[in-house]
């Protein structure tokens, strides 16, 4: 698939941010801006980068197409305390990104010279500058957002072992991230324990953790090895807590009920996620062929319903990579059609106690879908509003995946009021 060229006329083909804000007065303008910034990405001006202090802030380093290295803030926090999870390194150029600039001494989000919001850079946790007794930098063991930490227990995904089986929007697996059977394919438990001991020393820093990684299909039964890794890592983490259960989330391949029960019983885990990714079964088979072969969508859904029995209503959620349902050539032909199917599946899931969320699709350069164009802002706002209303209708609180614990789910962020 060819690289999509920047379309300088894109603004003429879509409703603007201002028009969308006016069209949906029931939604906070700052939340709509946040959706659009996730959709279009950000770019930092030189003045904005002068405010970056590596001793304080989290920094992302990446290589530009001309091979020059660039250091930018990991991401931004908005005035309402919500966190944008958008890196310049995965900002696409099919639309203009928002510019992060300095105006009147303040770091602000701007577009076409208009200042929209004051923002601040994410600060790094204290453990980021430390190393474990094995010499591993702790920031390689545990990653951080402003209020959440995360662990990736494995560095591979079995779906990518067979060419074309990987999820088509995924930028990680396509880079050749797969299991080689080396000890360092898995996170080291001693590193985890030591980093956790440092992490909990910092008061007021974190409110939760997510553990996630690629799918590991091996073991005495499907995903048994993946389950075992999560159990071991959670048990290592649990050594620093005084309570049996502590705020935590695993986002794994869909485990069966017996596996879910073991995951719940043997660890401190309090909530569980397994993402359907695409809410239409036929598109699921096209977008996520490996997943669909291993666990057909009907079975994936059943496992989510089983998870509600184990973890409780509101403690299980599922998400879609919003926008891929419109990917070419097999996706829905219209946004209207896509929304209809999204809401139909959403109702089915929520009626079984499964909380709904969506993550705005970033078209990765390394993904099979590279070069595709994401949907309009109007689409994302309608999807956000619809999923929020369905969660409300079924009494599903988004606390397990809130603005503090993730930040990437615009419909759940609306739960704050």
């Amino acid at each position: 698939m060819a690289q999509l060229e920047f379309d300088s006329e894109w603004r003429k083909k879509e409703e603007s941010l201002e028009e969308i804000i006016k069209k949906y007065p029931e939604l906070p303008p700052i939340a709509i801006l946040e959706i659009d910034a996730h959709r279009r990405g950000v770019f930092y001006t030189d003045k904005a980068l002068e405010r970056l202090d590596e001793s304080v802030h989290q920094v992302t380093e990446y290589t530009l197409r001309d091979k020059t290295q660039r250091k930018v803030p990991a991401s931004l926090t908005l005035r309402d305390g919500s966190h944008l999870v958008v890196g310049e390194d995965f900002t696409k150029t099919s639309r203009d990104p928002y510019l992060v600039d300095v105006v009147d001494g303040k770091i602000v989000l701007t577009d076409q010279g208009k200042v929209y919001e004051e923002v601040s850079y994410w600060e790094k946790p204290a453990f980021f500058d430390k190393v474990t007794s094995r010499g591993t930098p702790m920031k390689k063991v545990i990653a951080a957002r402003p209020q959440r930490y995360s662990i990736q227990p494995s560095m591979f995904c079995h779906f990518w072992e067979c060419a074309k089986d990987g999820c088509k929007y995924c930028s990680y697996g396509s880079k050749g991230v797969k299991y080689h059977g080396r000890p360092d394919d898995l996170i080291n438990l001693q590193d985890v324990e030591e980093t956790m001991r440092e992490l909990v020393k910092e008061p007021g820093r974190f409110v939760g953790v997510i553990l996630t990684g690629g799918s590991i299909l091996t073991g005495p039964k499907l995903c048994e090895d993946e389950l075992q890794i999560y159990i071991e890592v959670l048990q290592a983490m649990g050594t620093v807590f005084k309570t049996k259960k502590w705020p935590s989330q695993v986002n794994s391949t869909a485990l069966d009920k017996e596996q879910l029960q073991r995951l719940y019983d043997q660890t401190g885990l309090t909530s569980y996620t397994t993402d359907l990714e695409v809410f239409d079964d036929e598109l699921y088979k096209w977008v996520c062929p490996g997943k669909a072969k291993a666990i057909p969508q009907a079975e994936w859904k059943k496992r989510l319903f089983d998870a509600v029995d184990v973890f409780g209503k509101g403690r299980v959620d599922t998400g879609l990579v919003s926008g891929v349902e419109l990917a070419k050539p097999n996706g829905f032909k219209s946004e209207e059609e896509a929304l209809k199917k999204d809401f139909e599946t959403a109702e089915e899931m929520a009626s079984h106690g499964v909380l709904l969320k969506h993550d705005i699709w970033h078209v990765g350069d390394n993904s099979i879908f590279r070069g595709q164009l994401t949907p309009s802002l109007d689409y994302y706002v309608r999807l956000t509003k619809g999923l929020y209303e369905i969660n409300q209708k079924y009494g599903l609180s988004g606390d397990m995946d809130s603005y503090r614990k993730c930040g990437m789910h615009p419909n759940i962020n609306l739960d704050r009021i």
Partner: protein
Amino acid sequence: MSVQLEKKIIEAINDPASVKVIATVSKDGVVHVTPKGSITVDEEGRIRFLELLEKSQTQKNLVYSIWFDKYVAINIITADKKSYLIKGKTLKTVNSGKEFQDEYVAVQKKLGYDIDLSAIWFVDVEEVSEQTFEVRREILETAYPYEKHVDRFAKDEYRFENKEGGIRK
């Protein structure tokens, strides 16, 4: 539009002996009033206070205020019974980073290690007025001299006799 607070009002707000309450409105239009002892004025003249509970109604209403540009109201009652009303809009909230974490530690030092902190809130002051009864009475009765009961206009010899046997004046 921001207004600059007078020195005496800043002192009243920053005085720990003052009683401080905040009124907010929910998305359904329901008013919520709660004591907020942490209210102070920061170096930039903004109202600053702490919300300890993430899931409190005040926290929800403050988010509603910042999302939809709604007013909040604060009343400060000093030890000598003066009352100041401050109206404004939420400017920003801080729930991570050094400023937040320093405040988190301070809260726990003061209130105990099982107490949480959800956020620091900042309010941009748009209007200040003294609500002390004598002051408001003077202002309003001057502005509306005939909005009083008729007996207050009557000659003393005709006015109501109170239980102590004296004439009410």
